[in-house]
């Protein structure tokens, strides 16, 4: 279906007599700011052949050599200003990521309601930051971090669901999201460890503190967000502790 596009027609000052109305450039605002231009109403457009941007429609007049705009607008081309912003379309809710991040920064009080819906963009940012700080320390660990996070969340998923029994309803997406978010203390640890001498008691003490922080938050979130975790709290806490101890190995050595 041909949609009329009300942009001002471009009149080429060439020898061509017919004014080729070629909107070869998409306008952000179709509002006509040029005074002499009146966007022709669709019903009265007679002499000006507009381009119709349909999929599969061949560009009608070939008298222009402008780069033909890819007609991949899929029909909603006219509602360009009504398209959602990119981040929203990708599902990245920055405000929620920020809220979740600040909720993890407080090791004493954990608010599980924010983490109700899982998302993977926060963990992605944290893992990239972790890899970046490791890179600053001279270790190229991006692939290893990715692999280990996957295996660790799979491990936690299996252990939690097996312990919880028939009513275990932790799913892998949420598990991965929680493990990734609780990686924040490890990211801070790897940042701080850049300034601390590596062979000393200080770094081990710091490792203990940060690993316990991660473990505490991860256990709290796992137990409160998925059912039937309460009576196995200690067992799940030990599993989380093992996971974050593994990542602290990467930072320390």
């Amino acid at each position, binding site marked *: 279906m041909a949609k009329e596009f009300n942009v001002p027609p471009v009149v080429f000052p060439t020898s061509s007599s017919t004014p080729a109305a070629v909107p070869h450039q998409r306008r952000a605002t179709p509002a006509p700011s040029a005074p002499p231009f009146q966007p022709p109403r669709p019903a009265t457009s007679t002499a000006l052949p507009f381009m119709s941007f349909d999929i599969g429609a061949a560009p009608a007049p070939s008298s222009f050599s402008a780069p033909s705009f890819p007609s991949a607008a899929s029909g909603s081309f006219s509602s360009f200003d009504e398209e959602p912003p990119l981040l929203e379309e990708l599902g990245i809710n920055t405000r929620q990521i920020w809220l979740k991040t600040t909720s993890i920064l407080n090791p004493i009080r954990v608010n599980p309601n924010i983490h109700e819906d899982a998302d993977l963009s926060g963990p992605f940012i944290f893992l990239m930051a972790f890899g970046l700080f490791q890179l600053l320390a001279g270790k190229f660990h991006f692939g290893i971090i990715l692999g280990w996070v996957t295996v660790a969340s799979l491990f936690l998923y299996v252990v939690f669901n097996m312990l919880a029994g*028939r009513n275990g309803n932790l799913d892998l997406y949420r598990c991965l999201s929680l493990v990734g978010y609780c990686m924040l203390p490890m990211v801070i640890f790897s940042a701080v460890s850049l300034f601390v001498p590596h062979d000393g008691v200080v770094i081990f003490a710091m490792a203990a503190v940060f690993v316990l922080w991660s473990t505490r938050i991860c256990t709290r979130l796992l137990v409160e967000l998925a059912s039937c975790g309460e*009576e196995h709290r200690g067992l799940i806490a030990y599993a989380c502790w*093992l996971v974050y101890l*593994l990542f602290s190995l990467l930072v320390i*050595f």
Partner: protein
Amino acid sequence: MQSMMQDLGSSKVAWRHMRRGSWGQVQSLCKISSYFSNLQYYFQVNNKYVRSKLKLILLPFLHRGHWTRMSEPVGGRLSYKPPIDDINAPDLYVPFMAFVTYIILSGFTFGLLGKFSPEALSLQFTRGLAGWFLQVMMLKGLSYSLGNKDAPILDIVAYGGYAFAGLSVAILTKLVWNYSYYFILLWLCFCMSVFLVNTMKRVLFAEMRVYSNHSNRHHYIFIFIAIAQFPLFFWLGHLKA
């Protein structure tokens, strides 16, 4: 003519093999699903069970009770009680956690030696898995040779994995004080031997009604199980690579 008969015979045999093969696949699928539906049994644990089990593995001499698993009638058949109710029942939580603890502690050891790298850790992981597999094969093979073909494989996997708890303790003491390592390792090998012999005695004799004649063969097999722990522990505890 004879070659044609032979061909016919072989094709019939082949057809029978094929049919049996597909049924064997179905059978093995049923077995796998029965393993996984049964897997839940091995994770019914709680804190008290884990603590008692660790005490049992590391100090089996102090166990005043008996070593047999308690059974209860469930739906007309006799089945064993879950680990929550029975300290002697095998579980899979303790072996898995002990294995991961062993890997992490070996990572710490490598790091303190200055030779940590993620590849070395993966290599140690593979070595640990190989050791576990060897232990399981040995136990399963020995129970086959004694005629007990029905010992569930997950039980044997659990018994084989308990070795990692002792190994983890040994590596931890090595990290703390270097010279205590060999004594602790010998002690833990001995403990593990006692634990395994006591457990396997119950497993191997579970199906047999006759307890009276413990033949020489049985004694040799138990001695073999006890002695085989030592090289296994020394190999897995040797973290130098």
